[in-house]
């Protein structure tokens, strides 16, 4: 028994202070070299932590209970609060109306939000699929259009939800893996018609399915050769022939709506083909190269939330003459969890900083983008006339060529590898810790009011979506043995992040 421990929760939901350097002192070197970068991240962490504490934490259990009764329930008040702080468009540059958050800033937000509630977190911070999707091919006019749509909607307090539709009833992880895709049996199909494509089929387990205003869908033009013919389409949900099924009854993450999507002779004009046939897998891999790591950080957040709630419970739980937290075996178990959380946290932060340094976020540090953002007035940046100009053949392809030089196919696969490691580590941690915490606390701790059982329910699916952890392991192993010729920093030194 260790009665001396006077436990006050040192980090997380119960503390207002940022702890980026405090818990990861190795970042001090980076802080010295790039002070603005780390200071901004600390500010982002404070803002996200405050939002999690003040807005998410007090209401997530109520939202969960309401969604259990009615899966279509959505807390619009919470969404409006997040929208008013621009948290749902955080990565968009400040000059264009967003928060200009780096990948690191976003990762810290995801960790804070998911420690309160993974479902609510995905409603707010995972709604940047649209921007990510557009950034892949990076046609200048498309990117400008998507940013304008998102910023305008934010200002008008109008929700814009995106879905990223890959999974099909007959093909789960198959649709995310090059080898598997050669033998997959797609249930959706795009047929070439005059001026575009006609799409038929079904997608399942689609996040935001029932809410989405826009869907980014990967669909093959030849079901016999899905890998060679996979294309990526941008589909407004008011397109004729498009419909969403009922919102699924899930075990957890109930605040985030999941539904089937149905395509019945949906016409997609050529201008909304974001990747031509044969490039769809590349599109998917690039998004995965970013999102898998963020899911890992989400898993980490779930685990952290369970530990923080568990610590509070153990501090308050009296057993005869002592508190539960005074028992040394409980302290040992928590210490082990804290060790694992801190280790995975380092991996997640490292991944996010790598995204800023080498991946698509790097664009914001390049001279042309910096100069454009610096010199062009805000009104022009968000104007349709700039979009019109950018749609000219030459200008529209500039963005594409420029970005492809920065983010090569080899780099994408490298980041799928890095991201998969964080994803498997974070989500396995989530499942293990959310199960282990109640083992310390007892039956009463599984009452809904403590939030721990919700963490337990929320955790399991993180091992499944964004590619099952088994598929992630295949990517980890394959890349480790065949990392390709290009080293991560084998190129001109990038500009310093500031």
């Amino acid at each position, binding site marked *: 028994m260790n009665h001396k421990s006077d436990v006050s929760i040192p980090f997380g939901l119960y503390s207002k202070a940022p702890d980026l350097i405090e818990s990861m002192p190795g970042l001090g070197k980076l802080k010295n070299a790039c002070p603005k970068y780390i200071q901004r991240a600390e500010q982002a962490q404070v803002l996200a932590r405050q939002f999690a504490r003040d807005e998410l934490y007090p209401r997530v259990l109520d939202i969960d209970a309401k969604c259990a009764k009615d899966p279509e329930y959505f807390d619009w008040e919470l969404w409006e609060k997040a929208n008013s702080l621009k948290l749902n468009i955080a990565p968009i540059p400040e000059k264009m109306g967003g928060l200009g958050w780096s990948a690191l800033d976003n990762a810290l937000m995801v960790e804070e939000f998911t420690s309160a509630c993974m479902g609510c977190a995905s409603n707010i911070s995972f709604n940047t699929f649209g921007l990510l999707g557009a950034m892949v091919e990076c046609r200048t006019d498309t990117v400008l259009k998507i940013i304008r749509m998102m910023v305008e909607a934010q200002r008008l307090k109008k929700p814009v939800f995106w879905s990223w539709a890959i*999974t099909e009833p*007959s*093909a*789960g*992880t*198959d649709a995310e*893996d090059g*080898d*598997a895709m*050669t*033998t*997959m*049996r797609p249930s959706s199909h795009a047929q070439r018609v005059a001026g575009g494509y006609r799409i038929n089929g079904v997608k*399942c*387990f689609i996040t935001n399915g029932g809410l989405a205003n826009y869907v980014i869908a990967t669909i093959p033009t030849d079901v016999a050769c899905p890998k060679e013919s996979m294309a990526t389409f941008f589909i407004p949900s008011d397109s004729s022939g498009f419909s969403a099924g009922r919102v*699924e*009854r*899930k*075990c*957890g993450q109930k605040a985030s709506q999941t539904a089937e999507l149905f395509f019945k002779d949906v016409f997609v004009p050529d201008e909304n083909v974001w990747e031509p046939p044969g490039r769809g897998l590349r599109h998917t891999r690039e998004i995965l190269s970013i999102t898998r790591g963020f899911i890992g950080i989400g898993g980490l957040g779930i685990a952290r939330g369970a530990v923080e709630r568990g610590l509070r419970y153990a501090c308050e739980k009296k*057993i*005869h003459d002592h508190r539960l937290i005074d028992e040394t*075996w409980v302290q040992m*178990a928590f210490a082990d969890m804290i060790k694992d959380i801190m280790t995975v946290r380092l991996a997640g932060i490292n991944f996010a900083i790598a995204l800023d340094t080498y991946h698509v976020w790097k664009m914001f540090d390049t001279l042309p983008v910096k100069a454009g953002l610096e010199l062009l007035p805000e009104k022009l940046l968000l104007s349709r006339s700039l979009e019109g100009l950018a749609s000219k053949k030459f200008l529209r392809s500039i963005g594409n060529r420029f970005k492809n030089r920065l983010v090569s196919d080899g780099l994408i696969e490298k980041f799928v590898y890095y991201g998969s490691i964080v994803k498997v580590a974070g989500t396995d941690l989530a*499942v293990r810790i959310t*199960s282990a915490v*109640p*083992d*310390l*606390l*007892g*039956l*009463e701790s*599984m*009452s*809904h*009011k403590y939030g721990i*059982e*919700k963490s*337990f*329910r929320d955790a*399991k*699916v993180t*091992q*499944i*979506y964004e590619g*099952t*952890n*088994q598929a992630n392991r295949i990517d980890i192993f394959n890349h480790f043995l065949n990392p390709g010729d290009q080293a991560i920093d084998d190129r001109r030194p990038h500009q310093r992040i500031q």
Partner: protein
Amino acid sequence: MTEDRIKEYNEILSECRRFARNEIKPGSLEEDLNPDAGWILGLWQKSHKLDIPGLMLPEKFNGPGYPEICSAYALDAMAMECAGVASFFAHHFAACLAMSHANDEKSEIVHRVLNRRRSTTLPVATVIFPNDSNDPALSLHKETEGLVINGKSSLTANPDLSEIYCIFIQEDLPGHHVSCAIIDKSHPGIRLGEKASLSGLKAICFQDVIFDQAKISNDAVVAAGEEGKSLFDRFLNVYYGFVAAIAMGTARTAFAKALAYAKDRYQFGKKIILHQEIQRMLGSMRMKIDMGTAGYIQAFTANRVNLPGVSADGRLAKAFCTQAALEIVFDAIQIHGGYGYMNEYGLEKIMRDVKILQLLGGRNPYHHIQIIAEELKND
């Protein structure tokens, strides 16, 4: 075990499986979403056709007097369709163990509570006992006429629908003696707290039972002192063995679903059962089911060869089987992918149920501590 016995048990198992498939399965998912006491009471009525409620009772109380392992098999079979329903019966069976203990002198109280309704159905019973989940335990004051109980028993299973409470209370005397009493739910000085909202075993309710100067006459005390302690030890072993059996029942279903799905689902160019990793997962699940089943059977087996270091303690069977079942259902969900996380497939319900089973009657790591701490005391 004789061949006749095995045959007899197999028949009971088959009957219980049929009951589970025909009666429990059709409603188990709906009851998980919208629990309704009428459903489980309906099952209770129907289960009388197979004499399930009286399985544990000896002949003197008009039961068949089957040994405890037989009830564990029945629970295992019922848990294959719903762990909540099986838990309902498990708490009843555990109470029956205490009632069965009543000697001729004390049997009147048992006859009285069992026959109170003068109907063909037995009243439902449950158990209230000290464990680390409901600490601080109830306090007991002994008077010449009987016992006075005060305090709260946290999150007792099924006190609302039960008509009989079988209470074990530690006596405040050296030697940790225990009193065991059997009383009616309507006994003066007893009230129920709010229903807890747990994530699993939703077919039954968990509520605090609050005792406020509840006076229990000596007639209702079926065992006390050392005899009570001995009965309590036996009860604990059986109770935890029952929880272990339920966990294994749920694991069997999770495994069967995963196996069937793996044979059907095509991914990465072939049926997923042809992938080595899926075979490894299924093989590991099979190992845990085999070992867990052997473990809980051992907890009920009195005559064993004395292998050094083997305690056959029901708590350990429960700790092992519930952990094994959780790992099995985690893997079963993983094999199903997104479908496993959806309510309709029934696997996520098993996951939630098993997590609550793990915590019934105390925390698994704490059982480990207790077992060694008790051995130290006896050294």
